[in-house]
């Protein structure tokens, strides 16, 4: 009974904290972007403007929750839920500390890859159900981008799996006690990072929602809290990719002893979230065909080569 209660507590806390982090990231992003663009950002509501999120939330809850008459109503409602559900489910495998992990799957990474594949459905369904040309174009681009970048997202992680000898996330972290995997797997780390940006369709790879071409892409027709779900889902995605990079390449909760493991994990995770925001501030969006050819012509061969070399070296040194 105690064990069950503990797990329920962990699940509830993880969901609550993650959703608040994702919502808080909206403020963090606006502040940091402003910082890098010589502006101030929202600084009026509460200390440093931190309650801007609360104000925005109150506002978005009172917005008219409008569904266009021409939309496919059921699918239209389903789409924003899919993105939240898949990303929150992916968090189940992330070991925040040795104790705080929702499910200790032995197929951890595969579960994450499966969930991120399902995440593409929210883009496709949202764009399709909107019955709007911009939304459909965004959805087509989004699905193509997410499906192609998923390929080497998976392949880039295989180097880590070879080194750790396990798909289990906790085992992977434990295997990094001797040295974090971003050193032997630097290529894999870079590819995973780029694929992660494409997977969360963040700037500079936000081609499904490129506002200068497609209004807002697949969520053009969404308003109110349904739009809020897409929005928070995007920030949850950033948090997820940052958490995974931390776990897979930067030793997860491992760190020096003067700080507890959860602090180490959060520090590393937030560092990557800030890099995500910096990328948004610093880089322009590539053209759609450039993105695709970059993915298939450069990232795919490099990740295959990385996998091959890692496998060969591990075989050579371990036998």
């Amino acid at each position: 009974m105690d064990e069950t209660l503990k797990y329920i507590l962990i699940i509830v806390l993880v969901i609550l904290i993650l959703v608040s982090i994702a919502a808080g990231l909206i403020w963090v992003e606006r502040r940091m972007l402003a910082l890098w663009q010589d502006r101030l950002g929202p600084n009026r509501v509460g200390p440093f403007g931190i309650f801007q999120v609360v104000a925005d939330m109150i506002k978005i809850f009172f917005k008219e929750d409008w569904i266009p008459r021409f939309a496919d109503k059921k699918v239209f409602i389903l789409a924003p839920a899919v993105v939240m559900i898949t990303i929150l489910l992916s968090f189940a495998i992330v070991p925040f500390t040795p104790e705080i992990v929702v499910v200790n799957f032995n197929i951890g990474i595969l579960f994450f890859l499966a969930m991120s594949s399902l995440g593409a459905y929210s883009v496709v369904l949202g764009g399709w159900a909107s019955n709007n040309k911009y939304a459909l174009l965004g959805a087509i681009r989004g699905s193509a981008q997410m499906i192609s970048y998923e390929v080497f997202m998976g392949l880039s992680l295989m180097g880590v799996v070879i080194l750790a000898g396990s798909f289990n996330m906790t085992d992977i972290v434990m295997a990094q006690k001797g040295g974090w995997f971003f050193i032997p797997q630097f290529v894999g780390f870079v590819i995973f990072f780029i694929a992660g940006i494409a997977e969360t369709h963040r700037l500079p790879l936000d081609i499904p929602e490129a506002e200068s071409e497609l209004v807002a892409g697949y969520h053009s027709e969404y308003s109110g809290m349904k739009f809020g779900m897409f929005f928070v889902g995007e920030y949850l995605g950033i948090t997820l990719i940052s958490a995974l990079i931390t776990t897979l390449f930067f030793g997860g909760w491992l760190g020096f002893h003067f700080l507890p493991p959860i602090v180490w994990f959060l520090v590393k995770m937030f560092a990557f979230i800030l890099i995500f925001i910096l990328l948004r501030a610093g880089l322009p969006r590539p053209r759609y065909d450039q993105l695709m050819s970059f993915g298939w012509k450069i990232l795919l061969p490099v990740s295959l080569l990385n996998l091959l070399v890692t496998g060969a070296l591990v075989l050579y040194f371990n036998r």
Partner: protein
Amino acid sequence: MFNDLRSLWIVFLHMFHKRVTIEYPEKKAYLPPRWRGRIVLTRDADHGERCVACYLCAAACPVGCISLQATEDDQARRYPEFFRINFSRCIFCGYCEEACPTYAIQLIPDFEMGEYNRQNLVYEKEDLLIEGQGKYHGYNFYKVAGLDAGVKGKGEGENEYKPVDVKKLMP
């Protein structure tokens, strides 16, 4: 690739630059004296109204937000009976100021005219008329005009010739 990393680094360094934001209600931006903001009617150096109700401003106004009614006092000096500017229509183009022959109507660097009620944006003469002389000090239209409106006698103005005596032959 290295290009992108370099631009990321440059963007990162912007963290330590000076902010360009002016936190408005507390700090205010400098507005130059010729900034086109709220419209006022000025007075001359002798505290008389400059406006001679010539209707040129109303004619020049592209949105037709100025309305006035001319009248005369006992010394045949023209002045507006009422002068009304609808600031909810005004586009602050400054054409009225350009058209004004007496420097009466002027645009000043003030933009804080927000109202909750649209009707409050209709300014009457008492709202528009200020005590000062605005941008042009010491100017008095009736001192340079040929008209005797109680300010100076005929021919006594600045750069003004004596009136021709029609009963003499001399030029």
